[in-house]
């Protein structure tokens, strides 16, 4: 069981995390952040395994992962 904290404002919407999340719970949002990107969001924290794959591939260290 895990949780991720996402720092929306630093996300650049690159989808790298979306691609690798084994739980498939990461999606790009509809809305834009201040930098003009669609930031990622976790659509179902309860499915998060805390595997930190998202953290690993994210180039912008948007995630904090808890387990």
């Amino acid at each position, binding site marked *: 069981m*895990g*949780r991720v*904290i996402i720092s929306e404002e*630093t996300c*650049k*919407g*690159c*989808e*790298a995390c979306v*691609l*690798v999340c084994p739980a498939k719970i990461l999606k790009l949002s509809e809305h834009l952040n201040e930098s003009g*990107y669609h930031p990622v969001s976790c659509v179902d*924290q309860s499915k998060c395994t*805390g*595997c*930190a*794959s998202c*953290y*690993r*591939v*994210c*180039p*912008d*260290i948007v*995630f*904090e*992962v*808890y*387990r």
Partner: protein
Amino acid sequence: MKDKAKILEEVKTMKKVATRPKCLSDRTFHYCPGCTHGVVHRLVAETIDELAIQEKTIGVAPVGCSVFAYWYFNTDFSQAAHGRAPAVATGIKRSVPGSVVFTYQGDGDLAAIGTAEIIHAANRGEKITVIFINNAIYGMTGGQMAPTSLINQKTQTSPYGRDSETMGYPIRVSEMLSGFEGVKYLSRVAVDTPANIVKAKAAIKKAFQTQLEGKGFSMVEVLSICPTDWGMNVPDSKKWLQENMIPYYPLKEFKAPKAEDAKGGE
């Protein structure tokens, strides 16, 4: 927003397993979306934290997209001329022998203009660590052909694809350096998948350890993506790296100080 509050509450009782390394400043990377420069920065920063060497580390970043690396690392830094980071690092390390000196260089930087500097630093066995970002392109200047660009790869200066007849072959830098005795740790990794990123981290750590132990020159070549100048989105870029770069640039630990250390992995 209320979601966020809830999660903040929940995690209070949990273990933080992954978070921003202490050695990094709060500044958001200036890199393009998806650019793996950020990933490698994080791995280096984690290494510095884990080895507790922040106070004696001096980074050297030459020109390239990562010229502003000093914005991010809470260590002393020297910004080097294009291609000359190994020379600058030599100057630093020879002057402060107790320090840990690393360079962070692109493939245009290290494998083109900086060819002589990397070869001779390696051959001298300078006790520095080189992080070599091979993204098969000149990123910062807008996508010109790098020495590591692949055959038929289209770039701004090889608009019809790299032609070996007139532009030569992609240079395998690690293979070229692996013959030098002064080189004590040498590995090629990729940062495309979580698993490879874990391996990359291990390699970077070993490289720094090699330096800390005073053994000699250490380098990690990191296969990296440049979605912007490759003209691809991030998923396609990773695929391109996997399908084109890795076959030509096989992932491999070329050299490690001791046999036991040579296993790789986390």
